[in-house]
């Protein structure tokens, strides 16, 4: 709300500089964002929170200033007698839906000369950000800003039945509002009718058909209290927010209806030459009571952590126009002003005390610790994975949790249906992601576009899907992406391209690092978004927990990647129960181990895993390690064959191995390879 100091001075004396006032108002909860200079005045931009509709007015702000600086509040003059000497214009007010309109006050004036309002009023309205229209409309706006109560003026001659009927609209009813827009109403919207048809949407905007014009001479003023929820619903549904609806939906003051109309009447008589032709009518069937709250000094002190004196409590509340009545020791019955829509509980009063005690004066204390803290279950593994991958050169990515329409089909996850958003913002937020892969691929692509082709990324984040019963399921997933050179081009080692085995290797290092000792990586051709010949499944205890491989050729083309991209996606939560297996120390061997390399020639399409598995199944207890250290394919061996160099490490924990025993092991392995795979030693 824009507050011009020249205008505010009308209601309370201000000796402070605008800067000081800005600071002091901010510290009692009326945050002043900026001070702007306008002709002859400074204008404070006050941010009023939604619980304080009473501060959406000059008097409301002045009341706070008066309470803060302990100065009197000056109220503007108003017409005290709201009765016509003779009822020149009889009219009727009929409220049919009291639930949505607990109070409706009206007054009719005649002899009005519609014209421009005076310069001082123009200036004030403009300083507050309002456009002057004519004296009648300006007066209702002026009083709205001054007193915080929305008013509406109808041209009485345009009210066809000479009366006002307040009732819900007929579903589908149409009306044209003051802004010239034709609006369709529903059966829950409250309308102001004239007996023939609608002339306004209650608390939101008047109708064009009863607008004040230069030819208007007779005016019906409306000052009502409408149900906040109803106004809010109507305003939202119509997408129409006005100064009036903004105040009504936050809660206006039903006791302010008559004063607001009395003030308007005074101004109209002064500035537009009218006089009362139809006496005040006040339809107020069920009296609304002000909030009464019991306040205990002990509770206030306990909640704030400071000792508040009875004197401070009473004087603070009285300055804020609360009625305070002592009842028993250090206890008060407090009657709240009706404009304080936010008052309901003792805690609300305690906040008032805290505001004027000063939040800055409450001493900071630390509550004694009552227990030991604990991390979330995934914290340990997440930190470990992060450290390992960062150490291996991967940077951590965070993508938005949303997915595009084609993502689900392009990167079909292992399981589950996707979750759609009912009210997406754009096509980018239509679905929740079911995989990390699409986001990581797009991130890689973005880097390619900026000429960064060596990309290593990982992301630990949730994917979303529908569970078997349709309810949403969120799972933590780990995605790893690698592409480009294995290292930056350098002079030490020749450049190597990142490939499947780099990804597989980093995954193995990661699993070792979080002490998952037994896992398998087996070929698969079931992952649509990976190349069938370059993809594998990670299995732990026989259960698939993730996939890894090269992004398929069609996706490669679709995303214009132009370089092979490798991706792994691992169900993070399934790693949890098997990670960090207990450490059990094994004594170091006392005797030397023996290493033997052998190059064997096998059929080209024989999988290494078969050889390895077969050798291990020979169950030679002394064979402690088996590594593949070289692969050769070329002129020196027959076509359709390749040579694998295996390194076998033997160790006897009891005694030194003799040459003969080692040769025996080698012979066993060789005869197995020869019998099973027709593999022979490569002749040099």
């Amino acid at each position, binding site marked *: 709300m824009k507050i011009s100091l020249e205008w505010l001075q009308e209601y309370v004396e201000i000796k402070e500089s605008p800067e000081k006032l800005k600071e002091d108002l901010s510290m009692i*909860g009326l*945050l002043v*964002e*900026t001070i702007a200079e306008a002709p002859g005045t400074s204008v404070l931009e006050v941010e009023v*929170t*939604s*619980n304080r509709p009473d501060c959406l007015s000059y008097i409301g702000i002045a009341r706070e200033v008066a309470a803060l600086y302990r100065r009197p509040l000056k109220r503007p003059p108003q017409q005290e007698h709201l009765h016509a000497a003779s009822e020149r214009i009889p009219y009727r007010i009929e409220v049919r839906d009291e639930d949505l309109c607990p109070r409706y006050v009206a007054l009719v004036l005649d002899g009005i000369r519609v014209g421009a309002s005076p310069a001082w009023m123009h200036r004030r309205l403009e300083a507050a950000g309002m456009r002057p229209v004519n004296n009648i409309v300006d007066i209702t706006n002026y009083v709205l800003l001054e007193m915080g109560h929305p008013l509406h003026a109808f041209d009485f001659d345009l009210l066809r039945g000479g009366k006002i009927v307040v009732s819900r609209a007929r579903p589908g009813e149409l009306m044209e509002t003051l802004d010239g827009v034709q609006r369709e109403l529903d059966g829950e919207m409250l309308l102001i009718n004239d007996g023939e048809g609608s002339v306004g949407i209650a608390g939101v905007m008047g109708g064009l058909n009863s607008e004040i014009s230069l030819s208007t001479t007779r005016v019906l003023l409306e000052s009502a209290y409408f149900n906040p*929820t109803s106004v*809010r*619903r109507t305003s939202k549904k119509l997408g129409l927010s006005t100064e009036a609806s903004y105040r009504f939906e*936050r809660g206006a003051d039903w006791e302010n209806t008559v004063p607001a109309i009395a003030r308007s009447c005074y101004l109209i008589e002064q500035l537009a030459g009218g006089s009362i032709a139809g006496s005040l009518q006040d339809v107020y069937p069920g009296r609304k009571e002000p909030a009464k709250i019991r306040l205990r000094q002990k509770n206030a002190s306990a*909640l704030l*952590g400071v000792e508040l004196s009875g004197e401070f409590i009473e004087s603070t509340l009285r300055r804020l126009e609360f009625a305070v009545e002592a009842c028993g020791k250090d206890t008060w019955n407090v009657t709240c002003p009706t404009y304080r829509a936010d008052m309901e509980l003792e*805690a609300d009063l*305690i906040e008032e005390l805290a505001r004027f005690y000063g*939040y*800055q004066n*409450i*001493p*900071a*204390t*630390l*509550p004694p*610790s*009552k*227990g*030991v*803290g*604990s*991390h*979330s279950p995934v914290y340990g593994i997440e930190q470990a994975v992060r450290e390992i*991958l*960062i*150490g291996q*050169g991967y940077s*951590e990515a*965070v*993508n*938005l*949790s*949303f997915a595009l329409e084609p993502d689900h089909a392009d990167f079909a996850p292992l399981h589950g249906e996707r*979750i*759609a*958003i*009912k009210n997406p*913002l754009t096509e980018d*937020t239509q679905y929740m992601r079911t995989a990390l892969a699409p986001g*990581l691929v797009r*991130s890689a692509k*973005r*880097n390619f576009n*900026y000429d960064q082709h060596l990309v290593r*990324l990982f992301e630990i984040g*949730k994917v979303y899907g529908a569970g078997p019963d349709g309810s*949403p399921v*969120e799972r933590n997933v780990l995605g790893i992406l690698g592409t480009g050179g294995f*290292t*930056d081009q*350098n*002079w030490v080692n020749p450049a190597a391209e990142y490939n499947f085995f780099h990804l597989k290797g980093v995954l193995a290092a990661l699993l070792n690092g979080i002490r998952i000792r037994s896992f398998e990586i087996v070929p698969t051709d079931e992952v649509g978004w990976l190349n069938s010949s370059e993809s594998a499944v990670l299995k732990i205890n026989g259960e698939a927990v993730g996939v890894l491989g090269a992004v398929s050729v069609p996706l490669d083309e679709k995303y214009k990647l132009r370089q092979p991209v490798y991706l792994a996606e691992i169900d993070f939560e399934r790693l949890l129960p098997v990670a960090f297996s207990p450490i059990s120390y094994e004594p170091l061997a006392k005797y030397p181990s023996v290493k033997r390399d052998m190059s064997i020639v096998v059929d080209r399409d024989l999988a290494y895993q078969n050889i390895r598995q077969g050798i291990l199944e020979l169950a030679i207890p002394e064979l402690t390690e088996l590594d593949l250290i070289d692969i050769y394919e070329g002129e020196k061996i027959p076509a359709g064959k390749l040579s694998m160099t295996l390194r076998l490490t033997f160790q006897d924990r009891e005694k030194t191995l003799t040459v003969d025993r080692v040769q025996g092991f080698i012979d066993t392995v060789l005869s197995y390879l020869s019998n099973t795979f027709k593999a022979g030693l490569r002749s040099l």
Partner: protein
Amino acid sequence: MNDLIEKLRQRFEEDFATITGMESWKAVRDKYLARESGVITTELKKLRDLPKDQRPAFGQAMNQLRALAEERLQEKYAAAKAAELTAKQRHIDVTRPGFPFALGSAHPIKKLQAEIEQAFVKLGFQVMNLHEIEKEYYNFEALNMPRNHPARDAQDTFYLDETMLLRSHCTSVDVHAMETILPPIRAVTTGKVYRRDPADATHSPMFHQVDVVVVEEGITMGDMKGMLEAFLKQIFHPNIQMRLRPGFFPFVEPGAEVDISCIFCSGKGCPKCKQSGWIEILGAGMVHPKVLRMSGLDDSRYSGFAWGLGIDRVAILKYGVDDIRLFFENDLRFLKQF
């Protein structure tokens, strides 16, 4: 005899002078002193062929010569060894670049998230990171924001259906904490939250928050201030100042807006803090009695406080990032800076 010895000595000296390194040193040593075939050793062996009376003098002279040779060789050993070690050294250009070992980087928000959790665990908090897809009740109603509450305007929310939504703040977790933990409650949650804000430099439909709730008997607003101060000093800087202003959040009463002294100008006033010297950093307050009650806690017995802040906002302030979207684009030129 003396001639022979003198000749031997001269020959030794000539050879000795040729020593340049360990190899030639060893050759000279072996030539003269080898146990079986050394020149001096061999000559000494001839002792028994000499007449008896000449033997002592010859022996003495030869032994002197051997001692001399040993002494001379010993003198030269260190230099020869040094020359040998020098020869073994490799010569490289150390100014060439080292091998480009790659090191990745932690995401700034994730890093802060972990730091924040760590800080609270030290303060005795239980980390509760729960689901992001939430029942409308926990996001709004249980936090004293019934349907049609104006405060809902500030949080335009993504809905999945009539009752399920993407949480618009982490405060929903506070309710779960209060429902499931018997006081004393000290819970903290960090994670993603969602709002229907079109992405621009200061808005993102997804961002991150941390939310804290403490409920015990006798918790005061002073306790809230103390813990806030400890936390903010740890996250930003031990020298920052903090101030609380009255603020409004439906789930707390009294409510507070928390400012820290501007980290760009140390509170002197600059464009970043709109010359005020303060930067609004988070919302806090004493848990609203209605919220306690709805969570099944006796509001006449327990009190507590809660606060929440945007982790992205902290990162933006801490690192001077000028566009929130950078956090979610994963441009390595950005990520590598953290």
